[in-house]
Protein backbone atom coordinates (compact mmCIF):
# COMPACT_ATOMS: atom_id res chain seq x y z
CA UNK A 1 0.00 0.00 0.00
CA UNK A 2 2.61 2.53 -0.99
CA UNK A 3 2.11 6.07 -2.17
CA UNK A 4 3.53 8.13 -5.01
CA UNK A 5 4.00 11.78 -4.00
CA UNK A 6 4.43 14.47 -6.62
CA UNK A 7 6.17 17.69 -5.56
CA UNK A 8 5.82 20.64 -7.91
CA UNK A 9 7.37 23.70 -6.32
CA UNK A 10 10.96 24.83 -5.87
CA UNK A 11 12.84 24.19 -2.60
CA UNK A 12 11.96 27.73 -1.52
CA UNK A 13 8.42 26.44 -0.93
CA UNK A 14 9.62 23.82 1.61
CA UNK A 15 7.03 21.55 0.04
CA UNK A 16 9.31 18.53 0.31
CA UNK A 17 9.71 19.11 4.02
CA UNK A 18 5.90 19.11 4.38
CA UNK A 19 5.63 15.96 2.35
CA UNK A 20 8.36 14.17 4.30
CA UNK A 21 6.36 14.51 7.52
CA UNK A 22 3.98 11.90 6.23
CA UNK A 23 6.00 9.85 3.76
CA UNK A 24 6.30 6.17 4.70
CA UNK A 25 9.17 3.81 3.93
CA UNK A 26 8.69 2.41 0.46
CA UNK A 27 6.85 5.46 -0.88
CA UNK A 28 8.21 7.30 -3.92
CA UNK A 29 8.59 10.98 -4.68
CA UNK A 30 8.43 12.44 -8.18
CA UNK A 31 9.63 16.01 -8.62
CA UNK A 32 7.79 17.87 -11.37
CA UNK A 33 7.64 21.45 -12.65
CA UNK A 34 9.71 23.77 -10.40
CA UNK A 35 9.97 20.83 -8.00
CA UNK A 36 12.82 19.49 -10.15
CA UNK A 37 15.18 22.03 -8.59
CA UNK A 38 15.15 19.67 -5.60
CA UNK A 39 17.07 17.20 -7.77
CA UNK A 40 20.15 19.42 -7.52
CA UNK A 41 19.88 19.87 -3.78
CA UNK A 42 21.54 16.69 -2.57
CA UNK A 43 21.83 18.37 0.84
CA UNK A 44 18.04 18.29 1.19
CA UNK A 45 17.63 14.80 -0.24
CA UNK A 46 20.27 13.02 1.78
CA UNK A 47 18.05 11.58 4.50
CA UNK A 48 15.23 10.90 2.07
CA UNK A 49 16.73 8.62 -0.48
CA UNK A 50 17.54 5.77 1.90
CA UNK A 51 13.93 4.72 2.32
CA UNK A 52 12.17 6.52 -0.50
CA UNK A 53 12.82 6.41 -4.24
CA UNK A 54 13.15 9.85 -5.81
CA UNK A 55 12.53 10.78 -9.43
CA UNK A 56 12.71 13.98 -11.47
CA UNK A 57 10.47 14.53 -14.50
CA UNK A 58 12.87 14.49 -17.44
CA UNK A 59 11.05 17.05 -19.59
CA UNK A 60 11.03 19.55 -16.73
CA UNK A 61 14.71 18.92 -16.00
CA UNK A 62 15.70 19.47 -19.63
CA UNK A 63 13.69 22.68 -19.86
CA UNK A 64 15.54 24.11 -16.88
CA UNK A 65 19.05 23.06 -17.88
CA UNK A 66 19.31 20.51 -15.07
CA UNK A 67 20.99 17.19 -15.56
CA UNK A 68 20.85 14.18 -13.29
CA UNK A 69 24.29 12.64 -13.19
CA UNK A 70 25.13 8.97 -12.85
CA UNK A 71 26.04 9.13 -9.16
CA UNK A 72 22.84 11.00 -8.22
CA UNK A 73 20.34 9.45 -5.85
CA UNK A 74 17.53 10.83 -8.02
CA UNK A 75 16.43 9.06 -11.20
CA UNK A 76 15.24 10.55 -14.46
CA UNK A 77 11.59 9.81 -15.23
CA UNK A 78 9.86 10.47 -18.53
CA UNK A 79 6.10 11.10 -18.71
CA UNK A 80 5.82 7.40 -19.56
CA UNK A 81 7.60 6.55 -16.35
CA UNK A 82 5.32 9.02 -14.50
CA UNK A 83 2.33 7.01 -15.72
CA UNK A 84 4.02 3.74 -14.81
CA UNK A 85 4.71 5.01 -11.28
CA UNK A 86 1.03 5.94 -10.89
CA UNK A 87 0.14 2.37 -11.81
CA UNK A 88 2.75 0.74 -9.58
CA UNK A 89 1.94 2.73 -6.46
CA UNK A 90 -1.48 2.38 -4.87
CA UNK A 91 -2.37 6.02 -4.83
CA UNK A 92 -1.00 9.41 -5.76
CA UNK A 93 -0.77 12.42 -3.45
CA UNK A 94 0.01 15.74 -5.13
CA UNK A 95 1.89 18.45 -3.29
CA UNK A 96 1.31 21.85 -4.89
Amino acid sequence: MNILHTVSQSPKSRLLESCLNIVSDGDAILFIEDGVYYCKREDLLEQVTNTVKCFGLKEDLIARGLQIKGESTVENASYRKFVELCVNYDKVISWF
Partner: protein
Amino acid sequence: MKFSIVVYAAPYSSEAASTAYNFVRTLLDEGHEIYRLFFFSDGVHNANSLVATPQDETNLQHGWDKLIRNHELDSVVCVTSAIKRGIVNQQEADRHGLVAASITDSSEISGLGQLIDAALNSDRVVNFG
Protein backbone atom coordinates in the same frame (compact mmCIF):
# COMPACT_ATOMS: atom_id res chain seq x y z
CA MET B 1 -6.11 1.12 -15.70
CA LYS B 2 -8.86 3.68 -15.18
CA PHE B 3 -7.70 7.22 -14.34
CA SER B 4 -9.43 10.44 -13.42
CA ILE B 5 -7.60 13.75 -13.55
CA VAL B 6 -8.32 16.93 -11.59
CA VAL B 7 -6.93 20.26 -12.82
CA TYR B 8 -6.94 23.24 -10.43
CA ALA B 9 -4.73 25.62 -12.40
CA ALA B 10 -5.43 28.04 -15.26
CA PRO B 11 -3.27 27.82 -18.35
CA TYR B 12 -0.28 30.19 -18.86
CA SER B 13 0.17 31.52 -15.34
CA SER B 14 1.52 28.23 -14.01
CA GLU B 15 2.85 25.09 -15.63
CA ALA B 16 0.40 22.74 -13.92
CA ALA B 17 -2.34 22.73 -16.57
CA SER B 18 0.25 21.97 -19.22
CA THR B 19 1.71 19.13 -17.12
CA ALA B 20 -1.79 17.69 -16.74
CA TYR B 21 -2.28 17.87 -20.49
CA ASN B 22 1.00 16.06 -21.20
CA PHE B 23 0.17 13.47 -18.57
CA VAL B 24 -3.26 12.77 -20.07
CA ARG B 25 -1.78 12.40 -23.54
CA THR B 26 0.74 9.91 -22.23
CA LEU B 27 -1.96 7.98 -20.37
CA LEU B 28 -3.86 7.58 -23.64
CA ASP B 29 -0.71 6.65 -25.57
CA GLU B 30 -0.02 3.95 -23.02
CA GLY B 31 -3.48 2.49 -23.48
CA HIS B 32 -5.01 3.55 -20.20
CA GLU B 33 -8.60 4.63 -19.85
CA ILE B 34 -9.68 8.11 -18.73
CA TYR B 35 -12.84 7.91 -16.70
CA ARG B 36 -13.16 11.66 -16.36
CA LEU B 37 -11.35 15.00 -16.53
CA PHE B 38 -12.50 17.40 -13.84
CA PHE B 39 -11.67 21.10 -14.08
CA PHE B 40 -11.90 22.77 -10.69
CA SER B 41 -11.23 26.28 -9.37
CA ASP B 42 -9.04 28.25 -11.82
CA GLY B 43 -8.77 25.04 -13.82
CA VAL B 44 -12.09 25.92 -15.46
CA HIS B 45 -10.22 28.43 -17.62
CA ASN B 46 -8.85 25.48 -19.58
CA ALA B 47 -12.31 25.12 -21.12
CA ASN B 48 -12.58 28.70 -22.39
CA SER B 49 -13.38 28.88 -26.10
CA LEU B 50 -12.84 32.62 -26.60
CA VAL B 51 -9.06 32.48 -26.75
CA ALA B 52 -6.35 33.11 -29.29
CA THR B 53 -2.61 32.73 -28.77
CA PRO B 54 0.35 34.19 -30.65
CA GLN B 55 1.61 31.87 -33.40
CA ASP B 56 4.73 30.88 -31.51
CA GLU B 57 2.86 29.88 -28.37
CA THR B 58 0.82 26.78 -27.55
CA ASN B 59 -2.94 27.22 -27.34
CA LEU B 60 -3.61 24.93 -24.41
CA GLN B 61 -7.38 25.41 -24.43
CA HIS B 62 -7.51 24.25 -28.07
CA GLY B 63 -5.21 21.40 -27.14
CA TRP B 64 -7.61 20.15 -24.48
CA ASP B 65 -10.59 20.61 -26.79
CA LYS B 66 -8.97 18.51 -29.53
CA LEU B 67 -7.80 15.84 -27.13
CA ILE B 68 -11.22 15.54 -25.53
CA ARG B 69 -12.96 15.29 -28.92
CA ASN B 70 -10.51 12.90 -30.52
CA HIS B 71 -10.70 10.47 -27.63
CA GLU B 72 -14.31 11.20 -26.70
CA LEU B 73 -13.29 11.91 -23.11
CA ASP B 74 -15.75 12.75 -20.37
CA SER B 75 -14.76 16.29 -19.37
CA VAL B 76 -16.53 18.15 -16.58
CA VAL B 77 -16.13 21.75 -15.49
CA CYS B 78 -17.17 22.48 -11.89
CA VAL B 79 -20.28 24.63 -12.01
CA THR B 80 -19.57 26.67 -8.86
CA SER B 81 -16.05 27.47 -10.01
CA ALA B 82 -17.08 28.15 -13.61
CA ILE B 83 -19.99 30.56 -13.37
CA LYS B 84 -18.18 33.14 -11.28
CA ARG B 85 -15.12 32.91 -13.50
CA GLY B 86 -17.03 33.56 -16.71
CA ILE B 87 -17.04 30.02 -18.07
CA VAL B 88 -20.67 29.46 -19.09
CA ASN B 89 -22.59 27.40 -21.61
CA GLN B 90 -25.61 28.75 -23.47
CA GLN B 91 -28.02 27.48 -20.83
CA GLU B 92 -26.18 29.18 -17.97
CA ALA B 93 -25.71 32.33 -20.06
CA ASP B 94 -29.46 32.49 -20.66
CA ARG B 95 -30.29 31.80 -17.03
CA HIS B 96 -28.00 34.57 -15.78
CA GLY B 97 -28.73 37.03 -18.58
CA LEU B 98 -25.23 36.97 -20.03
CA VAL B 99 -24.68 37.98 -23.63
CA ALA B 100 -22.72 34.91 -24.74
CA ALA B 101 -21.49 31.45 -23.86
CA SER B 102 -17.77 30.95 -23.41
CA ILE B 103 -17.19 27.26 -22.75
CA THR B 104 -15.81 24.82 -25.32
CA ASP B 105 -18.55 22.40 -26.39
CA SER B 106 -16.41 19.42 -25.52
CA SER B 107 -16.74 20.01 -21.77
CA GLU B 108 -19.94 20.01 -19.79
CA ILE B 109 -20.78 21.99 -16.67
CA SER B 110 -21.72 19.95 -13.62
CA GLY B 111 -21.33 19.65 -9.86
CA LEU B 112 -18.74 18.30 -7.46
CA GLY B 113 -20.65 15.03 -7.28
CA GLN B 114 -19.02 14.23 -10.61
CA LEU B 115 -15.61 14.45 -8.96
CA ILE B 116 -16.60 12.08 -6.17
CA ASP B 117 -18.20 9.74 -8.68
CA ALA B 118 -14.94 9.83 -10.63
CA ALA B 119 -12.94 8.87 -7.54
CA LEU B 120 -15.33 6.00 -6.80
CA ASN B 121 -15.06 4.64 -10.33
CA SER B 122 -11.38 5.11 -11.10
CA ASP B 123 -8.32 3.15 -10.06
CA ARG B 124 -6.34 6.35 -9.66
CA VAL B 125 -7.11 10.03 -9.21
CA VAL B 126 -4.25 12.38 -10.06
CA ASN B 127 -4.38 16.08 -9.13
CA PHE B 128 -2.58 18.92 -10.91
CA GLY B 129 -2.44 22.39 -9.36
